[in-house]
């Protein structure tokens, strides 16, 4: 190439961006470990290992250079997000299989980094949820809600071989998620005020869950400050979720939880800052990002309240991923000197 002006560049590399995203997940993960024990770390470790092995295999099959594409960090981000999305006491093969699905079906079948239509982590998550609903909805209770006999070795035992551990122990350390709990209790005609007296609820979200969400929020703010994510997506998403939650909450406070509960429970914060902000599968125009965030928030709310699943982030994100090319083409910003 004879000419290549500009001769100077000043940009963080793709790997810098991805590793900053990983860094931003650390506070959330630390609080996760504090509240739920080491299970999640085992999952993250398994996911990372799987991603490195799978990606290098696929890259060598595709005759692509391995080093730059392994160290771009995008695979690790996918793996960590999946590990944080599934129950921390799911058997080991769930996360391994899930990561495989993410990398193969979510990423490389589309052409690898930069070409995937769907958010890879959510592809893996959705397939797992549909295929193994029992494992995927079997959550662990926060440590300090477990009566006395919790040992972190139990977590490891459950993850690697659940037969080694008594059913009683398993029952003792597992619990429903707040979203799930509300959903089942509401079908039993319990008023929300009574339901929320359960010990699994905290100040405004789920017990301990709200703390982890706070950790994600800190990481998210770091990403905003570093300009890794633009404000449009998280703000549009969280604001919409809050507003629609507020409307329904005012309308029928005994059936619909408070807007803050919508935000601080489930995976809302993780979704706002880490999942819908995946640049490859999100819109690129500022307006498009806002519409995308709003639409996902609405879908999440609809699925949570009216749908069959207690949490709807994965499906909402995947559905909106399909609409991204359309959103992008309809929200082109006004070019300098062009009419409105």
């Amino acid at each position: 190439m004879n000419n290549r002006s500009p001769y100077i560049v000043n940009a963080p590399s793709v790997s810098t961006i991805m590793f900053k995203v990983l860094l931003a997940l650390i506070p959330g993960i630390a609080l996760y470990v504090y509240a739920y024990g080491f299970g999640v770390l085992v999952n993250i470790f398994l996911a990372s290992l799987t991603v490195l092995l799978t990606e290098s295999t696929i890259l060598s099959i595709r005759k692509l250079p391995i080093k730059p594409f392994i160290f771009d960090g995008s695979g690790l981000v996918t793996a960590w997000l999946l590990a944080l999305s599934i129950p921390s006491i799911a058997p080991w093969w769930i996360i391994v299989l899930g990561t495989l699905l993410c990398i193969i079906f979510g990423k490389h079948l589309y052409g690898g980094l930069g070409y995937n239509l769907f958010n890879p982590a959510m592809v893996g998550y959705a397939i797992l949820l549909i295929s193994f609903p029992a494992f995927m909805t079997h959550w662990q209770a926060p440590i300090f809600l477990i009566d006395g006999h919790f040992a972190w070795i139990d977590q490891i035992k459950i993850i690697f071989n659940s037969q080694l551990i008594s059913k009683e122990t398993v029952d003792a350390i597992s619990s429903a998620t707040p979203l799930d709990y509300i959903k089942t209790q509401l079908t039993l005609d319990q008023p929300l005020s009574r339901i929320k007296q359960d010990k699994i609820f905290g100040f405004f979200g789920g017990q301990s869950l709200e703390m982890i969400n706070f950790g994600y929020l800190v990481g998210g703010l770091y990403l905003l400050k570093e300009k890794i994510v633009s404000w449009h997506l998280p703000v549009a998403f969280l604001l919409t979720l809050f507003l629609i939650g507020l409307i329904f909450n005012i309308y029928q406070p005994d059936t619909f939880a408070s807007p803050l509960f919508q935000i601080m429970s489930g995976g809302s914060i993780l979704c706002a800052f880490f999942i819908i902000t995946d640049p490859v599968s999100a819109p690129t125009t500022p307006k498009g990002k806002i519409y995308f965030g709003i639409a996902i928030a609405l879908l999440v709310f609809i699925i949570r309240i009216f749908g069959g699943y207690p949490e709807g982030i994965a499906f909402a994100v995947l559905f909106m991923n399909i609409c991204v090319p359309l959103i992008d083409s309809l929200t082109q910003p006004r070019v300098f000197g062009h009419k409105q």
Partner: protein
Amino acid sequence: MLMQIKKIFKFNGGVHPDGNKAESTHLPIARLPIPKKLVLPLRQHVGNIAKLKVKIGDHVLKGQMIAEADGNISASIHAPTSGKIIKISEEVVPHPSGLPDFCLTLEPDFKDQWIEKKSIQWKKLDSATLIQTLTHSGIVGLGGAVFPTHMKLKINKTQSINTLVINAAECEPFITCDDMLIRERADEIIQGALITQSILNAKHCMIGIEDNKIEAFQSLTKAAKKTSIEIKVVPTIYPSGDAKRLIYLLMGIEVPKEKRSIDLGIQVFNVATVAAIYRYIELGEPSINRIVTVTGNVKTPQNYEVLFGTPLPELIKNADGKETKIDKFIMGGPMMGFDLPSINVPVTKAMNCVIGSSPELFLPPKPVMPCIRCARCADACPVYLQPQELYWFSKSSQLEKAIDYNLFDCIECGCCTYVCPSNIPLVQFYRYAKSEIIAEEKAKEAANTARERNEFRLSRIEREKKERAERNAQKALGAQEKQATDEKKLAISDAIKRVKKNQQENIKNKNE
């Protein structure tokens, strides 16, 4: 005097690369001695190649026109010094293609003898006459666009000029030729601006200057003291020096697509251009030299006043030679410049800066990764384009789509590439797509002419055939008619003969 930024209008995006301007501003502008030969390309401007006015062996004087503007969009070339024309040939010129173009070679006689200089009483002449004289000045936009200046002075009759903007932004890193010119010759610039303002009949005149040029700002303010010229400070942000961006920064006016600023009553000139106008009008000196920044990996980075046609090696030699590390020379700045095809090129009207490049100064390009659609390029684009989409369409040669996404609004400033985490040479793709589209359009035009000519030929053949057929028919008809008259004549003569015979017989009978 403080440089205060007052009331500016910020455009989208832009970047803040390191200026690297201090290296070449610590020494004053130096004058380069007359070199042993001058190579003058006949095309140093946008538009038609200039028409030769001399032949080999002619002796020319300094400032004598040696090639004349051909048509409106063209500029004349003048002899930068006195001497002899020794060659007319194709030589390598400073152009990214590296292809040769027609050049005149002048051998100086080192007498540096001026042709008679005539200053022009511009205050007494009307604009049209002044513009007419300026067509012979050889002045083109010296900011780098090299568009013939006289064309920019011609005003649309329906739109009077409200504001004349003098562009002193010089936003591109490394380049300091305008900065140094302002510092040392602010008076010429102010005089030139006043002349230009009077030719355009513009109500206001303002100078836009970036806030990193404190000394230049001070000398401009001093020079403009007794005039109505307003000096406006704009923030240091690349590409503030782009004319449309500068107009927006200063006045908040967006020049609409496919319109020129002149349609809105605004015209922009570079500082060096108005200084050249001053020199032509007041001193009678045509455009024969310019200030060139020589910087980068040379021992003494500095600005030089250089005669057009000076071979680049002379210039480099005067900057105390190149450092051993230099692998190539770049013409222009690091954001929009290009690799010179060879060091053996002449200095032209477009050459504002030469950078001695080395792998340490400008790192070799990093490996290219796929686009992750992070849209940093869109955030940096001063035109508010979507570079990631344009890249996609250019890369896959979907040129129609690229046009739909306003490829031709791209000013190739390079901001998108500057911020790309994947190190994609985005601007390269846009340059490729643009020139491909232009070539296709030309091919289409040629095809249309060919179609018309073919259709014309076919209709001509058809017409000729018809005409021939008609002629034949006419001939046949004529023959028939002739035959018919022949028969009649025959009949008549027969009748006459018969009558005569009868008469003779009657006479005979009577006589008998």
